[in-house]
């Protein structure tokens, strides 16, 4: 009887140990990702797991961080990260009508497998991202070029008919539909990066998803670093590329991009010395970092606005007076000071004041005026006004702000407000289908220019999501890109922004800041307003 008792237990143990053995093989080997002291590896907390590393497929910021180490576009960031430095193109010329851009590529540009990188690679890459069957979500970023949009929609099938052409191996010409003053900034986005077509073709059709060329063993890029390992949901490591710009060697030996999707875990890892840079700081921890001497806390400007969308198609929010009353009743200073606590700026107009833009009309929060407006709209003290729902997606900071605003509207205006929390995908769906009253939203600029912010409110625009239509606004916006000079263009943007302040399809709440932790060991860390930088300029002190 005793043996019959012990045998199964042993069996259980044996199963366990064997399972353990197969699970452990990876663990016990000295992992490539292990933080080792000697080589200079930057340990970078990179938020969620990247979707892919194919510049034509991905859409996120986490992917951008890695891809900008693995690839290089025509132009790149300079050491301050504010200006533009030559990338694969060593110089470029713009035609007087600003419609034709000619890029002269470095003759010695190489892929990480040694192949030389030519203008044809760029052409074929642009053709690939615009091919309809690839279904690239960011292909629209190339739509400035003549024929690109038609090719992307399948209306044009001959790529030579488009405005992309390569007169020789080292010259690339882009013909634009209209002047794009911020084209150089736009070119820093990965949708404009070249990919190595022969490699992609080796692992499947080039114009289909699900290609395995981005796995470490298969990968070919042209950036300062090349892909070394990829442990899903753990870490992606990159090491110096020997083919990047001849003898050029980045200051770092490599970067480890950690996929850490919990900001609490990330902060603990930073404190435990596992990370040099984090993506964010949990709200509850900001105060203690602020009070530290020589604090690792970084608070940098960030080109974005946090705002609330109105559904202007639903009464009573179709009444601009009601919208204005709600906008004026928000105490932005309190939200910024007591909730966000990291010196974000209260937003009294929509477009962030940057890149030459200064606001025209701004909001002047005033509770008495708000009450007057609400009464004028027929709802004195909020009487007769139906309950209004604030929609937000599941996240601590959105929740707290919504709770604060709910209370401000309730006590200040007598407006009955309910909160509706939806998880991310449902929330997006509700916004796109206008199934909300008021919805929390944020917008981060793709390039440092006000155009991208004001472009949102075009009638029927894909990102409008407020039901707001204003033909005068649309006309004015179209005229902006044809403006004779920068000053004229900016004054058009000022007028557009003022229209938004007057009509208020959205309530601006605050201008973003990037709040994160940075180890004092990191050198040469520059940050621009888009939170981008060239990895080749960064160094690590021992």
């Amino acid at each position, binding site marked *: 009887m005793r043996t019959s008792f012990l045998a199964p237990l042993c069996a259980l143990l044996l199963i366990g140990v064997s399972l353990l053995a197969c699970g452990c093989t990876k663990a016990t080997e000295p992992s490539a990702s292990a933080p080792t002291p000697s080589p200079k590896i930057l340990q970078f907390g990179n938020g969620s797991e990247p979707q892919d590393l194919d510049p034509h497929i991905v859409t996120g910021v986490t992917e951008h961080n890695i891809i900008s180490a693995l690839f290089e576009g025509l132009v790149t960031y300079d050491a301050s990260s504010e200006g533009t430095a030559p990338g694969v193109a060593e110089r470029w010329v713009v035609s007087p009508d600003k419609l034709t851009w000619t890029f002269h590529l470095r003759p010695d540009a190489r892929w990480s497998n040694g192949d030389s990188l030519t203008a044809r690679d760029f052409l074929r890459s642009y053709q690939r991202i615009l091919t309809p069957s690839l279904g690239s979500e960011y292909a629209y970023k190339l739509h400035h070029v003549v024929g690109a949009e038609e090719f992307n929609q399948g209306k044009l099938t001959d790529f030579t008919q488009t405005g992309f052409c390569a007169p020789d191996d080292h010259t690339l010409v882009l013909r634009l539909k209209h002047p794009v003053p911020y084209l150089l900034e736009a070119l820093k986005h990965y949708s404009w990066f070249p990919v190595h077509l022969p490699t992609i073709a080796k692992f499947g059709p080039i114009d289909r998803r699900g290609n395995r060329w981005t796995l470490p063993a298969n990968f070919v890029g042209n950036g300062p670093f090349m892909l070394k390992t990829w442990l899903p949901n753990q870490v992606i490591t990159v090491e110096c590329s020997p083919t990047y710009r001849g003898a050029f060697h980045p200051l770092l030996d490599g970067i480890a991009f950690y996929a850490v999707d919990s900001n609490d875990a990330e902060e603990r890892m930073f404190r435990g010395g596992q990370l040099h840079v984090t993506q964010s700081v*949990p709200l*509850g921890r900001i105060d203690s970092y602020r009070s530290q001497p020589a604090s690792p806390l970084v608070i940098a400007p960030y080109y974005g606005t946090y705002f609330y969308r109105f559904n202007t198609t639903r009464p009573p929010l179709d009444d601009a007076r009601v919208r204005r009353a709600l906008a004026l009743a928000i105490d932005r200073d309190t939200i910024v000071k*007591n909730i966000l606590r990291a010196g974000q700026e209260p937003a009294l107009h929509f477009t962030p004041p940057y890149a030459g833009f200064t606001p025209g009309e701004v909001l002047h929060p005033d509770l008495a005026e708000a009450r007057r407006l609400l009464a004028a709209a027929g709802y004195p003290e909020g009487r007769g006004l139906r309950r209004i729902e604030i929609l937000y997606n599941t996240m*601590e900071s959105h929740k707290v702000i919504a*709770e604060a605003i709910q209370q401000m509207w309730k006590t200040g205006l007598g407006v009955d407000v*309910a909160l*509706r929390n*939806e998880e991310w995908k*449902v929330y997006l769906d509700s916004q796109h289908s206008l199934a909300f009253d008021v919805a929390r939203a944020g917008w981060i600029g793709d390039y440092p220019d006000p155009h991208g912010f004001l472009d949102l409110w075009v009638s029927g625009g894909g990102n409008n999501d407020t039901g707001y239509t204003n033909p005068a606004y649309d006309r004015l916006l179209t005229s902006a890109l044809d403006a004779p000079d920068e000053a004229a263009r900016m004054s058009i943007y000022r007028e557009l922004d003022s229209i938004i302040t007057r009509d208020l399809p959205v309530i601006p709440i605050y201008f973003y800041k990037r709040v994160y932790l940075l180890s004092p060991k990191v050198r040469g860390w520059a940050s621009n307003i888009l939170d981008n930088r060239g990895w080749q300029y960064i160094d690590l002190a021992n």
Partner: protein
Amino acid sequence: MSTAPSAPPLVPPAPIAERAHSPGRDAWLRLRRNRLSVVSGLFLLALAFTCIVVPPLLGQGYADQNLALGASPPSAAHWFGTDELGRDQFARVLYGGRISLMVGFVASLVALSIGVTYGAVAGYVGGKLDALLMRVVDILYALPFTIFVILMMVFLKEPMNDLDAWLRRFDFLQNLQGIGKIVGLFAAIGAVEWLTMARIVRGQVLTVKKMEFIEAARTLGYSHTRIIFRHIIPNVLGPVIVFTTLTIPSVMMLESFLSFLGLGVDAPLSSWGTLIKDGADKMENFPWLLVFPGGLFATTLLALNLLGDGLRDALDVRAAKD
């Protein structure tokens, strides 16, 4: 982490069939001798009473903010301190207690009604139907519960948001804001917690079925429904009560995990689960935001478990031999 491993299996006590000996009274006397259980029971009663009666008397709601005050440690004005919106944590903990206790009790009741009905039918009808029904239970046992609850919460979230919006149209339902999500919780948790109950009840019914008074009821020509609900179920109540007591804490724990995932009740309402989740994120700077809801939660779970143990000992005839 547990979605409560469906509580340790119970030793089925003998049925309470013969009323002449008043086993209920015996059990009560045994329970009273178990001081820990009595204390636990009293604590739970006091807690439920406080959570139900006190909040409206506080003069501060769970959503009343004082942004200028922000997060402040416990003081004479705010016994449990305030959170970063300056809301009185004492009020929030008590209101949260209402929600958590309600989720615990009602979801357990949902599980109980499904489980008891299912088990009673299986046991009473017997034969092939019993075999089939119990195979279904056995099979469902093998499902990843937590996974299913999460899926159901994701699935139910929108309908429940809509239900919520609909309920709010009626003025007399004002106080029920956020009830939709809670109903979703009842449904999702109740739907997975009934299995053990069904097993226990079936076992009991099989024993009770053979007793004379059931035969008597049958010969009197009573309907099956009447026999099941009037005669059989009352006689298997003992183990059902014990098991329910032990289900409540596991349901409350499950609710707190859903809160961790952002699938719990919605702001500005809070349950102990959401309070603890928020508090855990801020425990280093504002420890009182974790200590009070967390402490009460843990104590309540402890009390429920101790009471459950006590009831089990008290109602367990076999254990009473010792």
